[in-house]
């Protein structure tokens, strides 16, 4: 079973993502509420993909993504960043941090599921 690490400081967003994935896919979900916790969980849980918010306390999504890329154990894990900011410069910063993809809030469920499937299908 594929494992996804969901990272967001909003409990509402985490709950919605978890409900969507558990209802419509067989992916296993684990969660973190900031970038630092995400980096730690990625090392111990080795998820197949990280779906991560950008604006978070303690460590933001850009920094967490850079940390994941610096660590041998986590550098190959696909990272999809999620944010309310859709400006090109912001997306560019996301890709510079090493993310594989970038989606904007509010999340479109079917589009996100397609994107996840494209990374997680064998």
């Amino acid at each position, binding site marked *: 079973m594929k494992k996804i690490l969901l990272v967001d400081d909003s409990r509402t*967003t985490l709950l919605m993502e978890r*409900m*969507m994935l558990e209802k419509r896919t067989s992916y296993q979900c684990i969660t973190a509420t900031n970038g630092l916790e995400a980096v730690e969980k990625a090392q111990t849980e080795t998820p197949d993909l990280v779906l991560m918010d950008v604006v978070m306390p303690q460590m933001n999504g850009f920094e967490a993504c850079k940390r994941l890329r610096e660590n041998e154990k986590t550098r190959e894990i696909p990272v999809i960043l999620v944010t309310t900011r859709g400006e090109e410069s912001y997306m560019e910063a996301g890709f510079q941090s090493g993310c594989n993809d970038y989606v904007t*809030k509010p999340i479109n*469920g079917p589009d996100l599921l397609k994107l996840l499937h494209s990374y997680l299908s064998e």
Partner: protein
Amino acid sequence: MESDFAPSGQETVAAIEEASDPRSEAARKRLRECEDRRNACEVVREIVSNLLGCEEMALFEVDRKQQRLALIWSFGLEPGRRQLPQRLSDAVLSGVLAGETCIAQVCGHMGSECDEDKASAFVPIKFGGKTAGVLELLRLLPQKTKIDELDRALLAVISSEAGKPLFGGRGSGKGERKR
């Protein structure tokens, strides 16, 4: 009802949409967990900004005579943009007080040249069989093009579930925050 706004008026459609939308399900669960007004305001903010796509909102309390609205909380608005009367006509106000969610035919967007005081929706917050409050949404995020049927279902959840934690302890004054 003036021409800029239309009542959502499709409760059945909203209920069907809600059943298939995890956003509404998550919103309902989170609002039912709220213990007080402060917590409820934060959850409403999370729902509206993260699940719907609007980071400008204000919450007004309706007085017991159902005549006046008083601002109790806002998010993303400068002080000068928290004044409701200029945005809410009598026709829309009576619709909202009657329990109808009113959605602008054309919503405003952040980053566009639209009037920054343009309201996108007025949502009645129901409690005790009345409209106890009104949630106003202003400009949507740039990537959010409209308020669709799934969004209406989400707003219906806020309308029916947020009243208890927001107004169940009327007069407490807890949770007031203006940003």
